[in-house]
């Protein structure tokens, strides 16, 4: 890889002497998507570089390349001037790159010390030397100022405590580059302070930190520079001092949005089909309220972890929640998805392979799954009718399949999604909760799904549409609910919504006290 001739130094490049980690011209494709396209990044010695971008901008993919989980298709990566060509996370660790992922990779029933030194336990006579293990962990904690007991099982720690273990583990590798993916997502203020102290402590003239986050205030505080990615491309790198948050956001969302395709303004006076008040869950959602009208597509925007999927799962009874839900003015109690379906609420999950489809079964079985009970006589399924209904759906939704006996595993993503949609249409659901309806679906099929959702709404279905793709939300929804950290931070009419003000609401961390101010000056 080092033989790849790097292009001449570009404008804005930092002096190579100060560079710890350099990424140049990186391209990475997965079947159907180009995740990274000619991306570059420079991490200087002794700095914290913030990496920002919307969901799907390519941050995670870049991290996976640096940590050896994937290898780039083209481009170069250099650490300390030497080519970096890592094939596994272990190799990356050995080269001095440590990553703290958003989800922890800890073994809950093992002790803190065992977790930190997993796979490289000190041995004596071929057996694990537990005392040396604890001694090492204690030494590490003293050095870092982490107040943890090495003998404690990880399962007994708070989320912040587990985060500490992850950090200690990363630092125990004698890391040069520490990469943190949304490290503060689950931390409270005091814990964030501790984290920042650890980060500063880690920084020396031979180390650097890449800090991935959506939280602008924290980025302002901890980082020296900010690199922005968008749609898998490098956009810009800004010096943190003197950069306004608005400038960063503008670069994050700056893509071309086809403003010519927006839904017609919603006619007034349509009946409310679904009314939600004070929906809360123990883990995330706080007091989520909204109304959904007949024939309306209500978009839900927000960043990863904002709680949009949690709203969907709570609505359909997949997760426990409190709050008041009314369907056509009647209070309903949804304890499980069976209740939700009875009240005419159908759910298209963001993970359709896991929650949507019986992959090994055919189109008919999938389309009919929710309606079998109703379509059966004395407990027996009428297969002729079932196949007729399925065939009819295949025709109406233009599902491309050789026959209704085809296993859904063999269909394309777009057609699989249509099968799930067909399932709810056969069941006559009035309310459709669609979560990332076009995830993993190619561009042409996306258009079809958009048309389909629009048509369904025009026919009177009420649709809650959750999407991480802002253009999708703006294109389809008459109104947009924006969420951040489990709360609704704003509801915008489509005409008032711009990528900019949606993003501003989506990054309004810290909650409700901003709410009134926000909806006023959200431009």
């Amino acid at each position: 890889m080092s033989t790849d001739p790097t292009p001449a130094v570009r404008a804005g490049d930092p002096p190579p002497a100060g560079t710890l980690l350099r990424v140049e011209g990186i391209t990475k494709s997965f079947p159907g998507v180009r995740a990274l396209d000619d991306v570059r990044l420079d991490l200087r010695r002794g700095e914290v570089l913030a990496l920002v971008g919307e969901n799907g901008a390519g941050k995670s993919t870049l991290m996976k390349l640096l940590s050896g989980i994937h290898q780039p298709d083209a481009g170069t990566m250099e650490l300390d001037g030497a080519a970096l060509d890592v094939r596994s996370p272990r190799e990356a660790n050995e080269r001095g790159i440590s990553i703290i992922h958003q989800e922890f990779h800890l073994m809950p029933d093992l002790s803190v010390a065992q977790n930190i030194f997993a796979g490289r336990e000190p041995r004596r006579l071929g057996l694990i030397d537990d005392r040396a293990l604890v001694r090492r962990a204690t030494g590490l904690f003293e050095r870092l100022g982490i107040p943890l007991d090495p003998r404690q099982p990880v399962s007994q720690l708070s989320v912040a405590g587990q985060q500490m273990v992850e950090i200690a583990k990363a630092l125990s590798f004698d890391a040069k580059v520490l990469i943190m993916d949304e490290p503060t997502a689950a931390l409270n203020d005091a814990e964030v302070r501790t984290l920042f102290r650890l980060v500063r402590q880690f920084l020396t003239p031979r180390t650097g930190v890449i800090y991935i986050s959506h939280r602008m205030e924290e980025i302002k505080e901890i980082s020296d520079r900010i690199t922005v990615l968008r749609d898998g491309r490098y956009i810009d790198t800004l010096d943190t001092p003197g950069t306004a948050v608005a400038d960063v956001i503008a670069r994050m969302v700056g893509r071309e949005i086809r403003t010519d395709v927006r839904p017609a303004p919603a006619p007034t006076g349509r009946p409310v089909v679904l009314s939600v008040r004070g929906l809360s869950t123990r883990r995330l959602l706080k007091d989520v309220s909204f109304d959904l009208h007949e024939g309306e597509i209500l978009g839900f925007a927000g960043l990863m972890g904002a709680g949009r999927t949690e709203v969907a799962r709570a609505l359909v009874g997949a997760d426990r929640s409190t709050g008041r839900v009314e369907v056509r003015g009647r209070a309903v109690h949804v304890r499980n998805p069976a209740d939700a379906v009875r009240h005419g609420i159908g759910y298209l999950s963001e993970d359709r392979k896991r929650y949507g489809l019986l992959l090994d079964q055919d189109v008919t079985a999938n389309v009919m799954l929710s309606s079998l009970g109703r379509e059966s006589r004395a407990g027996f399924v009428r297969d002729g009718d079932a196949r007729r209904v399925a065939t009819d759906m295949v025709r109406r939704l233009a599902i491309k399949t050789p026959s209704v006996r085809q296993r859904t595993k063999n269909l394309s993503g777009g057609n699989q999604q249509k099968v799930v949609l067909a399932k709810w249409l056969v069941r006559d659901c009035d309310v459709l909760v669609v979560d990332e309806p076009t995830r993993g679906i190619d561009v042409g099929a996306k258009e079809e799904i958009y048309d389909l959702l629009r048509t369904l709404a025009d026919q009177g279905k009420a649709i809650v549409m959750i999407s991480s793709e802002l253009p999708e939300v703006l294109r389809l929804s008459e109104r947009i609910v924006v969420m951040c950290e489990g709360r609704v931070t704003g509801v915008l009419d489509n005409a008032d919504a711009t990528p900019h003000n949606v993003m501003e609401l989506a990054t309004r961390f810290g909650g409700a006290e901003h709410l009134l101010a926000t909806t006023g000056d959200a431009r």
Partner: protein
Amino acid sequence: MTSTTTVTDALPDAVVTSRGPRYRQQLQQILAFAGLVVIFAFFSVASPYFLDWANIKGILLATAVTGIMALGATFVIATGGIDLSVGTGMTLCAVMTGVFLTNLGLPLAVGVLGGIAAGALLGLVNGLNVSFLGIPPFIATLATMMVAQGLSLVISGTKPIYFSDVAGFGQIALGELVPGLPNAVLIFFVAAVVAGVLLSKSLVGRYALSIGSNEEATAISGIDVRRWKVVVYTVAGVFTGLAGVVMASRLNSAQPGLGLGYELEAIAAVVIGGTSLRGGKATILGTVIGALIMATLTNGLRIMSIPQEWQKVAVGVVILLAVYTDILRRGKDA
């Protein structure tokens, strides 16, 4: 509803044949059946006594009891679960039949239905434990396996209960409504047809397969998965009860010490028949063929005077071969 999308988009893709899952399931049964034919042919050549009708009848009789149990087990395994309690459960049902008929002197029909009901109750308990207490099927039914074994001994006072005084009880298994064919075999075949219809045409069967394919998606689709699992285990219990009655009738006694190990034979029959232990794929025809293979193999080896200990080895090897063939086949179409 009228869609804006055009009809022509949906025309079949000519490149792909529409043989689909049906063809694959048939292949699975054809393979199992071919195995049965090979085993049959082998023993026919190896032993002159094998093809004797009396011997064939013996094979069919031996198939009947494990076969009936295996029919029920197919439903449980279709959900991705397992039922270890069918062997000793069968014995408990036999003992209960003995209690009803011999000890209490109840009418024949009541005793028979009582035995079957005992099986249903056992299945219901299994289902409730799995669904509502969330106990993994393996453990839940391991526990009831032991409970059933213990109860059989307690209720019978550890002694066999004989049906000598119950007129007509022996006819249930050994009578010949169809001349030359013991009723036990007839019951097995009728039960297989009922099970086949239940699995492929009824809600219980469809939901069992759906749960086995993808339990989460089935739940999200609005099916009350917990309730239907209870139904599935109860259905399996009914077959266990029927097996218990047939067993008791065949031996003309309820033997409280019997039963342990039958559950493994039943599971082996299901698996040899091509049903996936992970759930989602199951056929009754496969299970019937699997049960026949198990019985034929044991019988053939015995008739060739292979020592009993080696018979076990051979049966074990056949199970490995059968499942491995299945894995090879699946690997290809994945």
